[in-house]
């Protein structure tokens, strides 16, 4: 009788660009994660609560639009409040983007920032570090 495999860590990817989310999904699945993908931020909270991710990868899209408001919603959701969030963005100034998002919802600030174009190995490394309880990864 075989020993059941330990549950795989769960990572949620929220990006409105299907090719990007497909890429991240495959890269993370290849690295051994269970991945939930959402291309539309609308109604994503319900799916996130059900999926109970260990890490969330969130595209900020444009800084004044969907990403920040969704981050605020995540921080206001009890089950998701403490989940580490990796910000994905094509905006060049990662540190400033993180600082600009710090105040959303009262929970912890984003744990890491990855600037696009995203390298699959860097993404996997970042997620693994966060799962291991690594310190906040500044760019």
């Amino acid at each position, binding site marked *: 009788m075989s020993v059941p495999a330990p549950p795989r860590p769960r990572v949620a990817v929220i*990006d*409105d*660009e299907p*090719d*990007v989310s*497909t*890429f*991240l999904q*495959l*890269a993370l699945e*290849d690295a051994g994660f269970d991945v939930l993908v959402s291309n*539309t*931020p*609308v*109604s994503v909270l319900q799916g996130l609560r059900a999926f109970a991710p260990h890490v969330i990868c969130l*595209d900020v*899209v*444009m800084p*004044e*639009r*969907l990403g920040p408001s969704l981050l605020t919603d995540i921080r206001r959701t009890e089950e998701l409040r403490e989940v580490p969030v990796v910000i994905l*963005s*094509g*905006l*060049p100034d990662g540190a400033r983007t993180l600082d600009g998002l710090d105040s959303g919802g009262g929970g912890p600030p984003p744990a890491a920032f990855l*600037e*696009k*174009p*995203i*390298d*699959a190995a860097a993404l996997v490394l970042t997620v693994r570090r966060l799962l291991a309880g690594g310190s906040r990864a500044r760019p």
Partner: protein
Amino acid sequence: MSSCPWLPADRTLLFDEIPCSIVVVDRSYTIVDRNPAFAAIWGDGLGATCHELTRGRPGPCSGCPAEKTFRDGERRVLAQNGRDRHGKPVHTLVHVAPVHDAGGSVSHVAIMSTDLTVTRRLQEEYQTLFEQVPCFVAVVDRDLRVVKANRLFRRVFGEPDGERCYALFKHRQEKCDDCPAERTFGDGGTHTSRHVGVSRAGEETHYLVSTAALQPGDDGPTHVIEMALDLTDLTRLEREKLEAERLAAVGQTVAGLAHGVKNMLTGLEGGMYVTSTGLKRGDPKRTSQGWEMLERNIGRISSLVKSLLAFSRGEGPRPSRFDPGEVVREIHDLFCQSAARHGVELRVDAGAAPVGPVVMDRDGLRSCLENLVSNALDACLVSGPAPCVIDMRLLERDGTVTFEVADSGCGMDYDVKQKVFTSFFSTKGAGGTGLGLLLTRKFVQQHGGTITFDSTPGRGTTFRLSFPRQRLPELPPEGGPGATDPECGSSRRQ
């Protein structure tokens, strides 16, 4: 009525009624007569000396004009400042005239004083205003020579010294083409225009000058006053603001472009990863998926570059005659399935009356409507779970053909509205180049139309493209580029 032995009888009435104070003193400066106007200011005064009465002095005043006239028999005119019997300052214009006795000697002196107190006050006020007003003020004659200039003018442009205004203001040798002073000399009216001058320190000076007629005569004004408001600092601030906005726009453009390109690069990165891992695993399905990602993102980069080039090179429209309703239906067919997949209803309202053929760039119109419907669909996708509807309307009223795309999506807030026509501004992240509405506006302008929109956050947005028929382009000559007229079988507009 006074009895004036030194005056002819028929002038006594004038002595009493003239609105000036007149007093007559003898050689001891004793007042021997005065008219009612004098008495009204100084009291009766008869028998008193003038210096006692008017100055409270025991002896004659220093430089007393009466004393001089007693001595030389000459008339004299002078301005005097003093105080009335109530102690209030009085400014007077004094005429001193000798009164001769039968032997021809000066026995008395008549002193006539005109009260200029009010006039003087007005003069002082005017002078203060003229000198202190924070404008350049100059009075010019018909030859445009500056006969008077205020302090600020003198400080910035130098002493007039009879120079002409254009020489002082602009260091010019000839009068300005749009000289407002000359126009005021011509019609007596007020004229205003903006100018750039050069200060005496050689600095560029911007000012808004208004002119008004002074001393109007039968042949028009003899002088004109030029009042110029210094706009130099304001102009500098305007330039700085424009430059800051330009730099901000450049920064925003570059950031937007970089953002869009980076998303496409991520798509390429993903395509390479998926293709590569597919090949390594001998997984044709995955390899094919990666290849499609590569193709798609290369296509998007290509599309972005083409859009940039199309926008920058100012390519003109290629007009043809076609049925606009057909294009609307094509766009409906293009989007209706994907809209339905997202729970969005896409409807076409052809309007009560059919709209006849139009002469436009068909492909351009199609791109515009495609862009508007795509935006509307995106607005619906982020608007929440409530059912969303997109209505496409085509209507014609008073010779203007209007295409409307109305959605019940998320709407736009103030900030987004302000940026709608900004290059590379997109609310769609990697999904948009930020050029769509910019290109749409360019298309509309090329066809003599207008693009407008109404939007309310949470309620939706309506974009309208309106084209007055008389401003639509003509069909090109037969055989020329774009000379297609499938409906009429002719390249000419019917």
